[in-house]
Protein backbone atom coordinates (compact mmCIF):
# COMPACT_ATOMS: atom_id res chain seq x y z
CA UNK A 1 0.00 0.00 0.00
CA UNK A 2 1.36 3.45 -0.92
CA UNK A 3 2.12 6.13 1.65
CA UNK A 4 -0.57 8.60 0.52
CA UNK A 5 -3.16 5.84 0.32
CA UNK A 6 -2.37 4.77 3.87
CA UNK A 7 -2.65 8.36 5.08
CA UNK A 8 -6.09 8.69 3.53
CA UNK A 9 -7.28 5.37 4.89
CA UNK A 10 -6.15 5.82 8.48
CA UNK A 11 -9.68 6.96 9.52
CA UNK A 12 -11.17 3.80 8.00
CA UNK A 13 -8.57 1.67 9.78
CA UNK A 14 -9.15 3.31 13.15
CA UNK A 15 -12.94 3.03 12.74
CA UNK A 16 -12.60 -0.67 11.85
CA UNK A 17 -14.15 -0.07 8.45
CA UNK A 18 -11.13 -0.94 6.32
CA UNK A 19 -11.91 -3.91 4.05
CA UNK A 20 -10.17 -7.08 5.29
CA UNK A 21 -8.34 -7.37 1.97
CA UNK A 22 -6.47 -4.15 2.74
CA UNK A 23 -5.70 -4.81 6.40
CA UNK A 24 -2.42 -6.65 5.86
CA UNK A 25 -1.01 -3.99 3.54
CA UNK A 26 -2.06 -1.28 6.00
CA UNK A 27 -0.45 -2.97 9.00
CA UNK A 28 2.75 -3.67 7.09
CA UNK A 29 3.07 -0.04 6.05
CA UNK A 30 2.32 1.23 9.54
CA UNK A 31 5.01 -0.98 11.02
CA UNK A 32 7.73 0.49 8.86
CA UNK A 33 6.51 4.09 8.47
CA UNK A 34 6.92 6.31 11.50
CA UNK A 35 5.26 9.30 9.83
CA UNK A 36 2.07 7.28 9.29
CA UNK A 37 2.11 5.99 12.87
CA UNK A 38 2.46 9.55 14.12
CA UNK A 39 -0.37 10.62 11.84
CA UNK A 40 -2.53 7.83 13.25
CA UNK A 41 -1.87 8.92 16.83
CA UNK A 42 -2.71 12.52 15.94
CA UNK A 43 -5.81 11.29 14.18
CA UNK A 44 -6.96 9.45 17.28
CA UNK A 45 -6.45 12.55 19.44
CA UNK A 46 -8.42 14.67 17.00
CA UNK A 47 -11.09 12.01 16.77
CA UNK A 48 -11.58 12.18 20.56
CA UNK A 49 -11.99 15.93 20.34
CA UNK A 50 -14.40 15.79 17.41
CA UNK A 51 -16.46 13.09 19.10
CA UNK A 52 -17.67 15.83 21.45
CA UNK A 53 -19.61 17.31 18.55
CA UNK A 54 -21.98 14.33 18.42
CA UNK A 55 -25.58 15.41 18.70
CA UNK A 56 -27.56 13.55 21.35
CA UNK A 57 -30.67 11.58 20.44
CA UNK A 58 -33.71 13.84 20.48
CA UNK A 59 -36.19 13.13 23.30
CA UNK A 60 -39.14 10.85 22.47
CA UNK A 61 -41.66 13.63 23.15
CA UNK A 62 -40.35 15.40 20.07
CA UNK A 63 -42.17 12.89 17.92
CA UNK A 64 -45.59 13.50 19.51
CA UNK A 65 -47.66 14.94 16.72
CA UNK A 66 -44.80 14.81 14.22
CA UNK A 67 -46.58 12.51 11.77
CA UNK A 68 -50.00 14.11 12.25
CA UNK A 69 -48.41 17.50 11.47
CA UNK A 70 -47.06 16.11 8.21
CA UNK A 71 -50.28 14.30 7.33
CA UNK A 72 -52.45 17.38 7.91
CA UNK A 73 -50.22 19.51 5.72
CA UNK A 74 -50.16 16.80 3.03
CA UNK A 75 -53.95 16.89 2.93
CA UNK A 76 -54.16 20.67 3.01
CA UNK A 77 -51.87 21.05 0.00
CA UNK A 78 -54.59 20.55 -2.60
CA UNK A 79 -57.01 22.71 -0.61
CA UNK A 80 -54.58 25.63 -0.52
CA UNK A 81 -53.81 25.26 -4.20
CA UNK A 82 -57.50 25.41 -5.18
CA UNK A 83 -58.13 28.27 -2.77
CA UNK A 84 -55.20 30.29 -4.14
CA UNK A 85 -56.21 29.64 -7.73
CA UNK A 86 -59.80 30.71 -7.04
CA UNK A 87 -58.68 33.82 -5.13
CA UNK A 88 -56.34 34.87 -7.96
CA UNK A 89 -59.08 34.38 -10.55
CA UNK A 90 -61.59 36.40 -8.54
CA UNK A 91 -59.11 39.18 -7.82
CA UNK A 92 -58.13 39.38 -11.48
CA UNK A 93 -61.79 39.46 -12.52
CA UNK A 94 -62.67 42.13 -9.96
CA UNK A 95 -59.66 44.28 -10.85
CA UNK A 96 -60.30 44.06 -14.60
CA UNK A 97 -64.00 45.00 -14.11
CA UNK A 98 -62.98 47.94 -11.94
CA UNK A 99 -60.47 49.20 -14.48
CA UNK A 100 -62.89 48.62 -17.35
CA UNK A 101 -65.61 50.57 -15.53
CA UNK A 102 -63.35 53.51 -14.74
CA UNK A 103 -61.90 53.70 -18.25
CA UNK A 104 -65.32 53.70 -19.89
CA UNK A 105 -66.71 56.29 -17.46
CA UNK A 106 -66.61 59.73 -19.16
CA UNK A 107 -66.77 61.37 -15.73
CA UNK A 108 -63.31 60.10 -14.76
CA UNK A 109 -60.59 62.58 -15.70
CA UNK A 110 -58.07 61.35 -18.36
CA UNK A 111 -55.18 61.81 -15.90
CA UNK A 112 -56.70 59.16 -13.58
CA UNK A 113 -57.35 56.83 -16.52
CA UNK A 114 -53.70 57.10 -17.57
CA UNK A 115 -52.66 56.57 -13.99
CA UNK A 116 -54.72 53.37 -13.78
CA UNK A 117 -53.29 52.14 -17.08
CA UNK A 118 -49.74 52.80 -15.85
CA UNK A 119 -50.39 50.96 -12.56
CA UNK A 120 -51.90 48.00 -14.44
CA UNK A 121 -49.00 47.93 -16.91
CA UNK A 122 -46.44 48.24 -14.11
CA UNK A 123 -48.02 45.40 -12.14
CA UNK A 124 -48.05 43.16 -15.21
CA UNK A 125 -44.34 43.86 -15.89
CA UNK A 126 -43.44 43.23 -12.24
CA UNK A 127 -45.40 39.98 -12.23
CA UNK A 128 -43.69 38.70 -15.38
CA UNK A 129 -40.29 39.77 -14.04
CA UNK A 130 -40.79 38.01 -10.69
CA UNK A 131 -42.01 34.81 -12.36
CA UNK A 132 -39.08 34.84 -14.79
CA UNK A 133 -36.59 35.46 -11.98
CA UNK A 134 -38.02 32.61 -9.93
CA UNK A 135 -37.90 30.20 -12.85
CA UNK A 136 -34.39 31.25 -13.84
CA UNK A 137 -33.14 31.30 -10.26
CA UNK A 138 -34.06 27.64 -9.82
CA UNK A 139 -31.70 26.69 -12.65
CA UNK A 140 -28.62 28.42 -11.31
CA UNK A 141 -26.61 28.09 -8.12
CA UNK A 142 -29.15 28.67 -5.40
CA UNK A 143 -26.93 29.00 -2.40
CA UNK A 144 -24.09 31.26 -3.46
CA UNK A 145 -25.29 34.01 -1.18
CA UNK A 146 -25.18 31.81 1.88
CA UNK A 147 -22.53 33.12 4.21
CA UNK A 148 -20.03 30.44 5.17
Amino acid at each position, binding site marked *: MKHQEVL*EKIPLYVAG*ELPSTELTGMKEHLEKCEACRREMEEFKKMEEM*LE*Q*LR*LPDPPDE*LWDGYWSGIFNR*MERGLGWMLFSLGAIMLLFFGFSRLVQGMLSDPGVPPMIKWGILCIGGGLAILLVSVIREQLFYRKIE*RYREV*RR
Partner: protein
Amino acid sequence: MPVEDRECIIAVLAGEKEAFSGIVERYRKRAFLTAYSIVHNEQDAYDLSQEAFIRAYRNLKKFELDRPFFPWFYRILKNRCLSFLRKRKQLAEVSIEGVFGLNTTEIDHDQIRLIRECVAALPDNAREILNLRYYQGYSYQEIADILEKPIGSVMSGLFYARKRLKEMLQEKGL
Protein backbone atom coordinates in the same frame (compact mmCIF):
# COMPACT_ATOMS: atom_id res chain seq x y z
CA MET B 1 -33.59 -0.18 -0.79
CA PRO B 2 -35.09 -1.92 2.26
CA VAL B 3 -38.20 -3.95 1.41
CA GLU B 4 -40.27 -1.96 3.93
CA ASP B 5 -39.41 1.33 2.17
CA ARG B 6 -40.31 -0.10 -1.19
CA GLU B 7 -43.63 -1.43 0.09
CA CYS B 8 -44.50 1.88 1.72
CA ILE B 9 -43.67 3.88 -1.39
CA ILE B 10 -45.63 1.57 -3.68
CA ALA B 11 -48.63 1.82 -1.33
CA VAL B 12 -48.38 5.63 -1.24
CA LEU B 13 -48.17 5.78 -5.03
CA ALA B 14 -51.28 3.60 -5.15
CA GLY B 15 -53.14 6.24 -3.13
CA GLU B 16 -52.64 5.15 0.49
CA LYS B 17 -51.41 8.37 2.06
CA GLU B 18 -51.15 6.83 5.53
CA ALA B 19 -48.51 4.37 4.29
CA PHE B 20 -46.09 7.30 4.16
CA SER B 21 -46.02 7.21 7.97
CA GLY B 22 -43.76 4.13 7.70
CA ILE B 23 -41.17 6.16 5.84
CA VAL B 24 -41.50 9.10 8.22
CA GLU B 25 -41.13 6.93 11.29
CA ARG B 26 -38.05 5.22 9.90
CA TYR B 27 -36.22 8.40 8.86
CA ARG B 28 -37.55 11.18 11.11
CA LYS B 29 -34.63 11.05 13.56
CA ARG B 30 -32.03 11.15 10.80
CA ALA B 31 -33.97 13.92 9.08
CA PHE B 32 -34.22 16.00 12.24
CA LEU B 33 -30.53 15.60 13.11
CA THR B 34 -29.48 16.40 9.55
CA ALA B 35 -31.55 19.58 9.60
CA TYR B 36 -30.29 20.44 13.07
CA SER B 37 -26.66 20.02 12.01
CA ILE B 38 -27.26 22.60 9.27
CA VAL B 39 -29.52 25.18 10.94
CA HIS B 40 -28.53 24.68 14.61
CA ASN B 41 -32.01 25.41 15.89
CA GLU B 42 -34.40 22.81 17.27
CA GLN B 43 -37.67 24.39 16.14
CA ASP B 44 -36.38 25.21 12.66
CA ALA B 45 -34.95 21.69 12.30
CA TYR B 46 -38.31 20.23 13.32
CA ASP B 47 -40.24 22.34 10.80
CA LEU B 48 -37.73 21.89 7.98
CA SER B 49 -37.59 18.12 8.40
CA GLN B 50 -41.39 17.99 8.24
CA GLU B 51 -41.42 20.20 5.16
CA ALA B 52 -38.85 17.96 3.50
CA PHE B 53 -41.07 14.92 4.11
CA ILE B 54 -44.00 16.76 2.55
CA ARG B 55 -41.88 17.67 -0.47
CA ALA B 56 -40.70 14.10 -0.77
CA TYR B 57 -44.31 12.92 -0.64
CA ARG B 58 -45.34 15.37 -3.37
CA ASN B 59 -42.41 14.32 -5.57
CA LEU B 60 -42.63 10.61 -4.88
CA LYS B 61 -43.60 9.92 -8.49
CA LYS B 62 -40.15 11.12 -9.55
CA PHE B 63 -38.41 8.74 -7.15
CA GLU B 64 -36.74 5.72 -8.75
CA LEU B 65 -37.85 2.63 -6.86
CA ASP B 66 -34.61 0.76 -7.41
CA ARG B 67 -32.60 3.46 -5.57
CA PRO B 68 -32.32 3.85 -1.78
CA PHE B 69 -34.76 6.37 -0.30
CA PHE B 70 -32.58 8.24 2.17
CA PRO B 71 -29.93 9.70 -0.23
CA TRP B 72 -32.77 11.07 -2.38
CA PHE B 73 -34.58 12.46 0.64
CA TYR B 74 -31.31 13.82 2.06
CA ARG B 75 -30.85 16.02 -1.02
CA ILE B 76 -34.38 17.41 -0.68
CA LEU B 77 -33.81 18.12 3.00
CA LYS B 78 -30.38 19.67 2.52
CA ASN B 79 -31.64 21.93 -0.26
CA ARG B 80 -34.59 22.99 1.88
CA CYS B 81 -32.29 23.83 4.81
CA LEU B 82 -29.84 25.76 2.62
CA SER B 83 -32.70 27.62 0.99
CA PHE B 84 -33.99 28.52 4.44
CA LEU B 85 -30.55 29.83 5.43
CA ARG B 86 -30.18 31.71 2.16
CA LYS B 87 -33.41 33.53 2.88
CA ARG B 88 -32.01 34.45 6.27
CA LYS B 89 -28.77 35.38 4.48
CA GLN B 90 -26.59 33.67 7.04
CA LEU B 91 -25.51 30.46 8.58
CA ALA B 92 -27.02 29.77 11.94
CA GLU B 93 -25.07 30.80 15.00
CA VAL B 94 -23.04 27.92 16.25
CA SER B 95 -24.38 27.08 19.67
CA ILE B 96 -24.47 24.07 21.91
CA GLU B 97 -26.69 25.30 24.69
CA GLY B 98 -30.16 23.83 24.77
CA VAL B 99 -29.45 20.99 22.37
CA PHE B 100 -32.59 19.02 23.20
CA GLY B 101 -31.81 18.37 26.82
CA LEU B 102 -28.13 17.57 26.35
CA ASN B 103 -26.31 17.64 29.65
CA THR B 104 -23.73 20.19 28.68
CA THR B 105 -22.11 20.58 32.09
CA GLU B 106 -19.68 17.73 31.42
CA ILE B 107 -18.19 19.16 28.26
CA ASP B 108 -16.04 22.11 27.40
CA HIS B 109 -18.36 24.66 25.80
CA ASP B 110 -15.60 26.95 24.62
CA GLN B 111 -13.67 24.14 22.98
CA ILE B 112 -16.74 22.80 21.20
CA ARG B 113 -17.77 26.26 20.09
CA LEU B 114 -14.30 26.80 18.67
CA ILE B 115 -14.33 23.47 16.84
CA ARG B 116 -17.78 24.18 15.43
CA GLU B 117 -16.72 27.61 14.24
CA CYS B 118 -13.77 26.04 12.44
CA VAL B 119 -15.99 23.34 10.92
CA ALA B 120 -18.44 26.03 9.80
CA ALA B 121 -15.60 27.88 8.05
CA LEU B 122 -14.63 24.87 5.93
CA PRO B 123 -15.64 24.56 2.26
CA ASP B 124 -19.12 23.06 1.63
CA ASN B 125 -18.07 19.52 0.75
CA ALA B 126 -15.64 19.20 3.63
CA ARG B 127 -18.15 20.60 6.10
CA GLU B 128 -20.86 18.26 4.88
CA ILE B 129 -18.70 15.17 5.36
CA LEU B 130 -17.56 16.29 8.82
CA ASN B 131 -21.18 17.07 9.80
CA LEU B 132 -22.32 13.62 8.77
CA ARG B 133 -19.43 11.94 10.51
CA TYR B 134 -19.15 13.84 13.78
CA TYR B 135 -22.50 15.55 14.37
CA GLN B 136 -24.56 12.54 13.36
CA GLY B 137 -22.14 9.66 13.75
CA TYR B 138 -22.52 7.96 10.38
CA SER B 139 -19.96 5.37 9.33
CA TYR B 140 -17.79 6.22 6.33
CA GLN B 141 -19.68 3.70 4.22
CA GLU B 142 -23.00 5.26 5.23
CA ILE B 143 -21.66 8.71 4.29
CA ALA B 144 -20.62 7.38 0.89
CA ASP B 145 -24.12 5.90 0.44
CA ILE B 146 -25.88 9.10 1.48
CA LEU B 147 -23.76 11.31 -0.76
CA GLU B 148 -23.82 8.68 -3.52
CA LYS B 149 -20.05 8.93 -3.92
CA PRO B 150 -17.39 6.22 -3.94
CA ILE B 151 -15.91 5.69 -0.49
CA GLY B 152 -12.52 6.70 -1.92
CA SER B 153 -13.86 10.20 -2.69
CA VAL B 154 -15.31 10.47 0.80
CA MET B 155 -12.01 9.43 2.37
CA SER B 156 -9.90 11.82 0.32
CA GLY B 157 -12.42 14.62 0.99
CA LEU B 158 -12.28 13.83 4.67
CA PHE B 159 -8.49 13.66 4.65
CA TYR B 160 -8.14 17.20 3.33
CA ALA B 161 -11.00 18.47 5.51
CA ARG B 162 -9.31 17.18 8.64
CA LYS B 163 -5.95 18.53 7.53
CA ARG B 164 -7.45 22.01 7.07
CA LEU B 165 -9.38 21.71 10.32
CA LYS B 166 -6.22 20.74 12.18
CA GLU B 167 -4.42 23.82 10.84
CA MET B 168 -7.30 26.06 11.83
CA LEU B 169 -7.48 24.61 15.34
CA GLN B 170 -3.73 24.98 15.76
CA GLU B 171 -4.01 28.64 14.73
CA LYS B 172 -6.57 29.05 17.50
CA GLY B 173 -4.30 27.35 20.02
CA LEU B 174 -6.11 24.02 20.36
